[in-house]
Structures are given as C-alpha cells and as structure tokens.
C-alpha cells in the first residue's frame, strides 16, 4: 500500500483527479467495503449464537408447538386480518380527532390575559388528568361507565367508546407536544409579526404554528406509532379487532400462535410509519443545517 507521490500545483480544471486523490478515494472505498463486510459477519455470528441459544433451551420443543404452529397461523390469519382492518379504521379516525383536539387545547393554553384564566386552567386540568390516567383504566371507565348511565343517544358500541378513550388520552399527550413546539418558537418571531401589524390570532396561525408544527412533527409521528399499537387495547371492551380475534383463536385451539400473528401484523403496520418519521427528521436536519463532515 504505497501512497503515490504527487507534486502540486496540478493540472487544469478539466483534468481528472490526481493520482493521490484516486488513491485516497480507493482507500476510502476499501475501508467502507471492509466495515460493511465486518458488519455482515458480526450480524450473522450474533444471529447464529442467539438462535442456537434459543433452539437448544430445554423448553424449546414445547414453546415451538404452542407459539409457532403454522397450521394454526394459517387458520387464524383471515379473521385476524379482518380485525386489523377495524384497528386501522379506528386508528385513522382517532388520529385525526387527536390532532384537532390536541392542537385546540395547546392553542387555548397559550391565550394570555385574566379573562381566559378559566379556559387555561381547564385545559391544564385536562392534560394533567388524561396524561396521568392509565389508558387501560380509562378504557374501562369510558367503555363500561358511559353506557351504564343509560342516557338517550349515548353510544354503546365498544368501538366508538374505545376510540373516545384513545382520543382523550392521546390528545392530552399531543397537546403538550404542540405546546412545547409553540413555546420553542423564538419570541423574536412573535415580535416581528406583531410589529408588522398582525393580530395575536394572525401571528399564531401564520407565523408561530407553522414553525411549531414543523418542529414537532418527528415527536408526533412517534406518538402515532405508539397509537398504532394501542388501538389493539380496544379489545378489552369486546370490540372484534385483531387482538380479540387472536384471542378467540387461541382459546379455540389452546395455542398461542394467533397472538404472534397479530403481533407481527402490528409490527408490519408500524414499519412504514417509522420509516417515514426517520426520513422526515433527516430531511429537516439536512434542510436547515449546513453540510459538514461531522
């Protein structure tokens, strides 16, 4: 591995890279190739060791029978997919409602002046209460308590009530994320907008919120991923979603494979969102910061 000797200054613009640069590029390529193959080998070794450790454990045959039964998996798949479709619909509806309610609460919490104190206090109480309340307990309270009132016109469907509970909990989280975003916009931005004659509302809508929303999109997508699997919790109210279907099949066959099927389906559902979230954050970083080797 000899480094080519080179004397500079070199060559007009249209000449290719110098021998030295070609050697450097080559060296870097070799390094990349070496670290890639190293990563491949270490991953393979890890997987083999991990796999062998599991397969050679004393209880493995029993676990394989009750968790990895292909026949049961095939039998349960259609029903679970059916249930997953319900989860997806609940996800879409609740995500939209959560963003609307969350943004509304966050905006209300930023209102200034003594007149708005009750509104601010109410919003603060809302976020405190629903962020503190465990989701599973809230599901029971809403799912069984609300229909228990036997009021006219109040929904009794476990799907609707489950969605309501999800919206209550998640909008409280999302409101706080939005509020953090709004507060992270530098006061000089408000000053600039107000000095141009924009009203408080106009400043909020045109200047502050667009910056805040852009800034909090990655954490919001993170909350969306969390919501994606928490929609499975509506099964505790008796809704026939993916988790419930898996449960029914597991009870029928005395085999846990359907749970694994449902779980993997949820993972598959989450992967696109996770990738989109990663891509979005990366793009934001690239756009707003100068390039560099660090």
């Amino acid at each position, binding site marked *: 591995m000899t480094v080519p000797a080179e004397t*500079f200054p070199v060559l007009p613009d249209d000449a290719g890279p110098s021998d030295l640069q070609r050697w450097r590029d080559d060296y870097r390529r070799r*390094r990349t190739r070496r670290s890639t193959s190293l990563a491949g080998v270490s991953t393979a070794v890890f997987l083999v060791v991990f796999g062998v450790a599991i397969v050679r454990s004393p209880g493995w045959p029993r676990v394989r029978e009750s968790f990895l039964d292909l026949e049961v998996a095939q039998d349960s798949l259609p029903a679970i997919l059916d249930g997953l479709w319900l989860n997806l619909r609940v996800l879409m509806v609740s995500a939209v409602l959560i963003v609307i309610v969350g943004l509304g609460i966050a905006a209300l919490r930023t209102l200034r002046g003594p007149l708005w104190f009750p509104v601010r206090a109410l919003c603060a109480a809302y976020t405190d209460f629903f962020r503190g309340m465990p989701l599973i307990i809230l599901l029971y309270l809403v799912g069984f308590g609300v229909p228990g009132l036997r009021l006219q016109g109040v929904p009794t469907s476990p799907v609707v009530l489950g969605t309501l509970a999800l919206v209550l909990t998640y909008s409280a989280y999302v409101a706080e994320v939005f509020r953090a975003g709004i507060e992270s916009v530098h006061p000089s931005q408000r000053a600039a907008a107000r000095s141009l004659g924009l009203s408080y509302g106009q400043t909020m809508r045109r200047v502050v919120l667009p910056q805040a929303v852009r800034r909090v999109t990655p954490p919001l997508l993170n909350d969306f991923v969390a919501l994606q699997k928490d929609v499975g919790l509506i099964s505790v109210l008796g809704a026939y979603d993916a988790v419930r279907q898996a449960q029914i099949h597991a009870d029928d066959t005395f085999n846990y494979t359907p749970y694994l099927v449902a779980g993997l389906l949820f993972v598959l559902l989450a992967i696109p969102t996770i990738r989109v979230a990663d891509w979005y954050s990366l793009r934001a970083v690239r756009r707003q910061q100068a390039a560099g080797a*660090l």
Partner: protein
Amino acid sequence: MPERPGDIVLSCEGVVKRFGDQTVLRSVDLQVAEHQVVTLIGASGSGKSSLLRCINLLETVDDGVIRLDGEDITDPRIDADTVRRRIGVVFQAYNLFPHMSVLDNVTLAPRLVGKVAREQAEDRARTLLERVGLADKAQEYPDRLSGGQQQRVAIVRALANEPRLLLLDEVTSALDPELVGEVLSLVRELKEQGMTIVMATHEMSFARQAADRVVFLDAGVVLEEGPPEQVLADPVQPRTRQFLARILEAGRL
C-alpha cells in the same frame, strides 16, 4: 517536529473542494510560516470559509494536500481529532455553548481532551480570561455577554488547547464597529506573542496594519498574494483592484 523560526506550519497544495457540482476551491496553494499572520480576503463565496473548514478537517478535500507541520493531514488514515487538537478555530457566530458558564466553555476541551485536572484547567482559563479583560465574567453565561465579549471568550476557548495554528473565520463580521476594535486588538496581541494565525476577514485596515501577508481569493483560487502594502495598495490583478475599489466605496478601507 523541530520548531525553528521560519518553519512552515501550514501548507496547502492544489486544494480542491466541491459541493455537489459546484467547485468552491479550484486549486488553492497557501503557505504559512511560524509566527506569521496571514489574512484571507475576497468576496463572499470566494472560498475563504471553505478553505478554513478544509484545514480544520470539518470538510473533506476533493483533491490536493494540506500539511500541518509537514504532516499530511488529508491522508485518510489520519486521526482527525488529534489534528483538530492542534488547531484552534474561532467562528463568525462565536458558537459558544449557551448552557455552560464562560469558565466551563473554556475548560471543557482541556479537561475532556487534554485530561487536565479541573483546578489546573480553571487556573489557566482565569489567566487567559484576565488577559482579555474578562476575569470578572468567568461565572456568567454567554447569552449575558455582549458580542465583543462573547467573541473574546471564543478566542480564549480556542487558545485553551494551546494550538499550533489559530484559524479565525470572519470573527468581527457580527460585531458593531466599537466592538470590532476590542477583538482585533486581542488578535494583534496574539500575533505579538508569536501565534500563527490564518484569518478570513473583511477588515482591510486591520489586514494592512497587522498581517504579514494578504491572500486574495477569487472564485476558488489564490489570485494574488503578498505583503499587505503591495496587495492592498498596489495590486497587480484587475480583479483585486475591482474588489478593493468596491470595498473602498463601501467605506471599509
């Protein structure tokens, strides 16, 4: 490395840097001897900052060689961190750490990188801060200081590592004229103490008074270089003359 006076500290030979299909440095040659102050002048976008970033290995060069004390620092096998330890950089926007006091800003690198004991590092930091007239600000946070004070702290922070070479990237551009003076007199003081400095600047009067050599960068090449009285007063290249005339018009010479 023997350090005889007149030794070449920094040498750039045929340095090329591209961003995408845009070539910002076409083929830059530059030599800086020990104890020299070299100022880089040129219009915005002429490549001054890019060159400084390449020297500090914040950017990877696309061709050419940069040597620090004769050692090829553009060799891909080199450890960039050990090279950067020998080079101090001060940025246009100070880049102080806002969550740390002035003292912690200055002592961070000596403590983490140089493994100097906290007490020792702080003693030295206080001495340096005293030299720049900021001894009473040691416990303050950067945002509470004026721009000139922040920039002097940034220079002290770069000096705390006892660098072989100091790179200053338009350190006075964000300051109002009154504050420019206090930073430039600090740079002049460093020169008198024998520091080797490469400085990108728009302060032509400072370049004339304090620089040993002025280098005019234009469109990614060194178009003209020499002692300040020649480059600034009697430039050979028409482009240099044009650039200086514009600066004169703007009232900055």
